[in-house]
């Protein structure tokens, strides 16, 4: 049972980042400017609240590119609506997190 997600500024920022195409931990950190100790626990909480879901990249793709597989995050339906609500609540957030140019 998902808890009522408290839409904090950090949550809004991360939701916006994921929505904009920054879909793995380090890129979210870089885009939001938040430290790893904030981003990862926040994402776990959001995943628990079913705002986002995660999936591991296929090993074959990572092997082909000679890098470790990434854990990708994407918004759920609830996360999408929460992100919309966050944009209304924090109008400047869109300017803080521009859309990703190339989503790897």
């Amino acid at each position: 049972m998902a808890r009522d997600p408290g839409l904090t500024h950090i949550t809004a920022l991360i939701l916006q980042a994921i929505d904009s195409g920054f879909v793995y931990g380090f890129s979210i950190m870089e885009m939001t400017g938040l430290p790893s100790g904030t981003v990862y626990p926040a994402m776990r909480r959001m995943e628990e609240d079913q705002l986002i879901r995660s999936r591991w990249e296929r090993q074959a793709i990572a092997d082909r590119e000679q890098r470790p597989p990434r854990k990708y995050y994407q918004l759920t339906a609830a996360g999408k609506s929460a992100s919309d609500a966050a944009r209304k609540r924090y109008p400047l957030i869109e300017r803080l997190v521009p859309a990703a140019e190339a989503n790897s």
Partner: protein
Amino acid sequence: MFSPLEIVVRRMHLGLLWSASLLVPTGMRSEWWREWCAELWYVLRECSSKTSASPRSIREATRFCMGAYQDAFWLRKRSRQNHPLFAQIGSSPSACLFLLAVAFFLVSGIAHLSARITAGISRIEVYPWRMSDTGAAPCDCPFDLLAGRGSLRGTQLMFDGFSHYKITQETVWSQNMPRTKWTVAEARSDFFDVLHLPVRLTEGVTTGHDRVPHLVLGQDTWLRDFRGKANIAGTQLHVGSVDAIVSGVAFGGSMGLPGSANAWLLAPDLQSGRGKTEYVAGHLSSHGYFEDGRWGLSVVGILFAFLLFPFVSRPSVGEYGSSSPKPSLARRTRFWAFLFAKIAFGSLIVCVRGPWLFGRATLFAVVELSTGCFFRFTLRFGPEIGLLRSAASVPCLPQANDASR
């Protein structure tokens, strides 16, 4: 190809992640470890693409890894919340006792291990007093505490003195003695006194030669190189670059001390850095520190601390509300009786037992402290008890009980 520095830094970061992973609940650990290692790889790649293994990039990667602890803590906390039974057990007194017991055994184990490690690095040689009906007699042989403490089982022994010495190889000669290579132990002047080692010191040698180092010959050396010469005391010997006066002959247990010294060079200020091997020696006795009456100082010190406590703290007898500027006669009488009784009792102890228990400096310090406390007490509570009436007009902050009125 990584440089050695990069390899070390990478291992350090992985070590940080590994230690953080220990905080993660077991079921989530492998996934957590996989994610953070993968992310660290990208962080390092990003950092090294900016600058190659610069302090800044290392710092950034380290900061990233430190965040893993927060994440691990969060997961741990979350896990406990999801498993209230575990949380309950974790905070129960029995669990606390269990953790304390584990900590105790852990610390004991570490202490035991470190003692064994220390034993390999240095040995502590101690000289126990052999107790008999006739009194204490020094043991003739050195006693290795670490190796032979089993023989002390059942006997309460305490250290009452420590000293140290260092072994050097010196050439010794005099007008009547050819140059000979000796093993010389350099120690402080009070070495034999502190360790209660038997030594035949000759009277009269020390007077007038206080600044000259003294040389205590080992019994074997005295017999071999000086043929047991009876009037050896006062002979001047050149010990390396130092001129020393022979002041006595050591015998018995001191010759068994590690280093096999031919002689002991005693000087008030022991120069450091010359000797290659240095030893610490301690003396054990059944009375330990309390043997020579110093316990009295400790006990009376504690007593005085109790005596002085009311003078440096606010006694309840002085707690008056601001609405009553002058306490009742009964209270004032009780206060003054209390104060004079304390001072009289303290003075009595100082006068009767002071010279025995304290040196002059200590006595002076106690008197000064008492006087200072008395003045402080007078200034603090004088207005309230009517001693310093002129200061009573200073407005006071209302107390809690007054505010409630």
